[in-house]
């Protein structure tokens, strides 16, 4: 039944883009909330007491590079070069994990510095915004891992390049969101 489509774009790919369009509103609202409440926090600690730019720059860089790994994985699977596919896929997932590790460390640090989720307006907006993004990254890592497993079991090759491409779209979007958060939360502190 999944024959040629009216637009020529495969259904699942179109769906992923549509989903991404919808996600824009999700993160848009979260970002709007964060920006509106910027500087309205009444109870210490305040953002500039805690945010650690150099540290977050590193994890940001890692996530950015994971996007490169992702496209390379796609290129590889399209060439049906499965060894490379495995390599790049695992690196993408790994970089994602590193980013998550960084976020875990950051959250943990904040909590110890006296900023639990319920502490003040800053903690509320910061944790929910970055947490939502983190959850998206985690989801992506799991998704990539399943692809990796399927490649290792020889269940995924050039014929499934589309599947990898779609996972990639999701991954890049999550990366794009972080590009924005990095600037708005950390650099414009």
């Amino acid at each position, binding site marked *: 039944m999944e024959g040629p489509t009216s*637009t020529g*774009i*495969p259904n699942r*790919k*179109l769906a992923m*883009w*549509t989903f*991404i*369009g*919808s*996600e*824009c*509103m999700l*993160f*848009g*609202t979260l*970002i*709007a909330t964060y*920006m*509106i409440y*910027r500087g309205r926090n009444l109870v210490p600690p305040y953002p500039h007491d805690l945010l650690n*730019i*150099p540290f977050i*720059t590193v994890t*940001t*860089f890692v996530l*950015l*590079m994971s*996007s*490169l790994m*992702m*496209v*390379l994985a*796609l*290129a590889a*699977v*399209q*060439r049906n070069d499965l060894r490379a596919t495995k390599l790049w896929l695992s690196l993408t997932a790994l970089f994602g994990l590193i980013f998550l590790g960084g976020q875990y460390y950051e959250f943990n640090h904040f909590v110890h510095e006296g900023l639990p989720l319920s502490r003040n307006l800053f903690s509320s907006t910061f944790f929910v915004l970055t947490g939502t993004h983190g959850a998206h990254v985690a989801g992506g890592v799991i998704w990539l891992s399943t692809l990796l497993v399927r490649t290792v079991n020889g269940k995924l090759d*050039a*014929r*499934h*390049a*589309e599947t990898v*491409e779609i996972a*990639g*779209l999701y991954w*890049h*979007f999550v*990366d*794009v969101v972080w*590009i*924005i958060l*990095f*600037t*708005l939360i950390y*650099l*414009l502190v």
Partner: protein
Amino acid sequence: MSRHSAESHPSTRLYVSIAVILAALTALEVMVFYIEALAPVLIPILLVMMAAKFALVAMFFMHLKSDGPVLTAIFAWGTFIATAIVVGLMAIFGKFGA
């Protein structure tokens, strides 16, 4: 289908160079952040660089440049309405002076 896309998509070299640019921009952003002299114009500069990175990833890593108008339209609508709502709300809450 995947075969055809293999040719029509940019090559590895392009991907790498995009990544390099992205990395450079990120480094630049952080530098700008630390240069006192730029403090007054910090916000516009950072926003521009942010937008640039956003566009690069979308166009090349997400292949919007080569994948044609339908997908670009969908994504553009999402980002447009979202940005409009963000800016609108911030304006209502007096975040742009006024």
